[in-house]
């Protein structure tokens, strides 16, 4: 593909990295969701993800790159777009021609990014420390307890819920938009759009349900 200097190229890169993250989200959700009905499944799947070499050393770096790329490209485009209108309108009725979600991807994106920071701090950093710094022995049964403990705090659960509401907005526009950006607009577009909208609601809502479930109904003693 051509240079990334052209706006369309950047947008396509945004769309592709976004779609990749959408796929990742589905996988993440599937594993998390098992925690609602089966502690065992959750533990075994988590253990697999945490110790499989392909996942750890190929998929994980790709994912991290995908997130960073999506984020950096988003900022670059945002800066370009801001420059395209230096003097703003005194009166601007954006809601009459477009959705809040579509106009504020940078805001929903930034909140999700902030949440990702917290998420890394909560899960990923301790996990890396646990495995590679402290070199603890493998324990295939610790994941479920760790998960439930995190959702004990009402503040953390609140932040989690808020972030996923914004993810809902982000996906509501972004998922469908990526198809248009890649030039995919034909007789199937309506169906695909319906699917993306459904996805945008169900997946974040699922994450929220999981969080609330563990927060309210699943307090295990320390």
């Amino acid at each position, binding site marked *: *593909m*051509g240079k990334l*200097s*052209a*706006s*369309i*190229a*950047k*947008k*396509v890169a945004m769309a592709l990295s976004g779609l990749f993250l959408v796929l990742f989200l589905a996988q993440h959700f599937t594993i998390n969701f098992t925690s609602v009905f089966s502690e065992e499944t959750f533990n075994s799947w988590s253990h697999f993800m945490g110790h499989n070499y392909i996942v750890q050393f190929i998929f994980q770096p790709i994912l991290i790159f995908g997130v960073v790329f999506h984020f950096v490209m988003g900022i670059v*485009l945002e800066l*370009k*777009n801001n*420059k*395209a*209108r*230096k*003097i*703003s*309108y*005194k*009166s*601007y*009725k*954006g809601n*009459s*021609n*477009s*959705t809040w979600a*579509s*106009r504020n*991807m940078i805001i929903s994106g930034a909140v999700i990014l902030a949440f990702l920071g917290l998420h890394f701090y909560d899960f990923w950093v301790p996990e890396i420390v646990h495995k590679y710094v402290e070199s603890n022995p493998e324990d295939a049964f610790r994941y479920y307890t760790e998960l439930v403990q995190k959702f004990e705090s009402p503040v953390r659960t609140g932040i989690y819920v808020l972030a996923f509401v914004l993810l809902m907005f982000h996906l509501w*526009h972004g998922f*469908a*938009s990526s198809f*248009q*950006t*890649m*030039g*995919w*607009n034909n007789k199937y577009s309506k169906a695909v759009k319906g699917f993306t909208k459904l996805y945008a609601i169900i997946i974040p809502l699922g994450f929220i349900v999981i969080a609330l479930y563990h927060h309210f109904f699943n307090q295990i003693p320390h």
Partner: protein
Amino acid sequence: MKLTLKIWRQKNADTKGSLQTYPIDGIDGDMSFLEMLDVLNEELIEKGEEPVVFDHDCREGICGSCSLQIDGRPHGPERHTTTCQLHMRHFNDGDTVIVEPFRATAFPVIKDLMVDRSSFDRIQQAGGYVSVNTSGNTIDANATPVEKDNADEAFNSATCIGCGACVAACVNASAMLFTSAKVSQFALLPQGEVEATRRVLNMVEQMDKEGFGACSNTGACFIECPKDISLENIARINREYLKASAEG
């Protein structure tokens, strides 16, 4: 009808502008928005003030000269309507109406509500044509049949009047609807195919160079477009661009 107008006044490109308030009375519902401004200008001239400058020409919705961001929307509140075809019956007695120029870095203000849209011309100069000589002989017009659907679709894209409402509406001040309509018109016809690769690459490059924003598919352009230019054009230019990039 009585109105309070808040109009952007700016002496020239180098000075700062501001909104000025003008009360106006005796407005008839059958007047167009521009005729209402004519009335205001006659009053201003009478009072020895400078009339408000705005672009307009055909006043029948086809030349694309008129612009104006009216109450936060390009060409005002009615869909599929240019400012010259917007009639005052859509406003109510006592309304306050805010009138601003189309805002985009690529559309610098010339004076008051008049902006410079020559960036659109330069995008088209970069490749919006078929390289065929205009004098002398060519093949018979019916020698190359064109599928009716494609011909109609090309026509629909070609009805863009280049007013700039898409840019004015877009949160990113993106010119993708405009550029895509111009690219599509040729992409859909056999006559335009030969130069398709070069055309899309050059026109997109020029569009970026002019300082328009990137498209984020908010769809505002399509809602505000007075000529109903479809968003499919944007998908098409993306497709054409990817194809061209892969080839070139």
